[in-house]
Each structure stands twice: as C-alpha cells, then as structure tokens.
C-alpha cells in the first residue's frame, strides 16, 4: 500500500442541547458541528445540518448575535416501526457572537447536501490595507 490513507471516520453522538427558549414544536434540538475560518476578506462558517432544506433554514442576525436554526421533519412514515435506532432526528440551533468587523448587509448563505455555508465579508474599514512605505 502506498501513500497515506484517509483516516477512518469515527461515529459521534449528536450533541443535544437544552435551550432557554423553547421550540414551538416538541422534539430534540441538536448543536451542529461547525468549521469557522477567517481570511483577509471575511469569515466563513460551515455547519453540518443534514436533513435541513433551504425553506426550513432560518438565519437571524440581531445585535451582533448570529443564530442559525434548521428544522428537520421526521423522516419516518406513520406506519414505520423502529427496528434499530442509533440517532434521533431533531432541529439544529447554534448561536455565535459576531464581531463588528462584519458587514452584516453582505452575508451570503448557501445550503447544499445538508451543509450550510455562510460567507461573512469584513466591513471595508476592517480589511487590512497594505501601506506602502516610501523611502525617505
């Protein structure tokens, strides 16, 4: 065998949360796993939210608190009975404090294959500007 193989994925239990604010529909609420990284031009957030469709996704920004929420309908039909259950289905919710450096009017969102991608550009004044130093 040559080269390095991708390591095997390990199963993780879904992180259930109890929020102060209750959901209108009963059911479990989970914290989605996220990657957040920053480049010169902005901050990008990627969240795993399988089962969430674009119409059930709610992205809210108030007072610099970003809330991502996704409802997940129960996938089982009414006549189905459990044989073997390893995970529960429920909605996803997570909140982050955004720095003022983000231009909140230019946030872009994309949801594909259950992964949410939020691109948050930095406000103009927060983009580091290179200053040329003149030789004096």
């Amino acid at each position, binding site marked *: 065998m040559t080269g390095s*193989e*991708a*390591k*095997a*994925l*390990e*199963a*993780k*239990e*879904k992180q259930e949360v109890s929020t102060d604010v209750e959901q209108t529909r009963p059911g479990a609420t989970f914290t989605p*796993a*996220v*990657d*957040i*990284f*920053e*480049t*010169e031009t902005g*901050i*990008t957030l*990627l969240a*795993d*939210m*399988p*089962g*969430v*469709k674009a119409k059930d996704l709610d992205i809210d920004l108030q007072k610099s608190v970003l809330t991502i929420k996704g409802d997940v309908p129960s*996938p*089982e*039909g009414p*006549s*189905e*009975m*459990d*044989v*073997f*259950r*390893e*995970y529960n289905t429920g909605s996803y919710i997570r909140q982050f404090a955004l720095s003022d450096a983000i231009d909140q009017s230019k946030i872009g969102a994309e949801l594909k*294959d*259950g*992964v949410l991608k939020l691109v948050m550009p930095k406000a103009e004044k927060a983009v580091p500007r290179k200053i040329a130093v003149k030789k004096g």
Partner: protein
Amino acid sequence: MAIMRPFWPTRDSSVVGELDRMRRDMDRLFGSLSGRSFREPVAGVFPLTNITEDNNNYYVRAELPGIKGDDLDISVTGEGISISGERKIPEEKKDASYHRREREAGKFSRMLTLPGQVDTGKVEASCADGILTVILPKAETAKPRQISVKAV
C-alpha cells in the same frame, strides 16, 4: 542461586489485589476525564444508522452531510446491507486561519444485518440534503401474513 521471592505476601486479597483494584479505578477515573463517555454509540462505527420497517419494506437511514449519491457505495445481500464511502472536506486557501474546526473528514464502511430477507432486485437508495434513505422491499417470505382463524 537464590530464588527471587516478592517482598510482600502474594495472596490476592492483600497488596497485589489492592494494586489491581486501584489500577482499575484509576483507569475509570482517567477515562471519564478524557471526555470519552462510557455510552459509546452501539457499534461505534460511522455512520450512525436507523432501521425501521413497515409491512412491506425495511428502511435504512443515515445522516451523511456533505456527501452526494456518487460518493457512496451501497451493496445489498439477502439479509445485509453495506454502506461505504468517503467524506471529503475541501481544503481552504492557505491564508485561512481557523477559529473552530469541529467537522471531520475520512473514510467509512459499515455493514448492517437486517432482521429479515429482502428482495435485492428492488432496493432503492436516495441521498438528499445529506440524508441517505435506502428502501428495501421485504422478500415475500418475510412479509407478515394474516392467518384467518376458523370458527369451529
């Protein structure tokens, strides 16, 4: 040649047995400190899967965010199903600095045994929004049959 004897008596109920018990307790203590809960998922294998049934079909579902149908390899035998694939997370640009990194990429492969025989020719699998759903119609012999009770 002297025979080496332990300095302390070797009865298990005394010092050696005590040390053994202490070691087990320490293992348990450090195990809980390192964050691994004792309640690991049943098989500890990715992906976590749910199997449900109704009168005609078995349904196998798994949460696979970021994975499309093409990245999956699903095969079915009379009583089992195997799900394999790889989750890839695209590399970001060099100047990206991570604040959080919670998602993982990697290969997975899992075999599950179904509670009864299925009709392998009619199995359907679909993957939408990161959820894999496999519908396996039960073989005729596995479907429940109503037995009418004759009044005597």
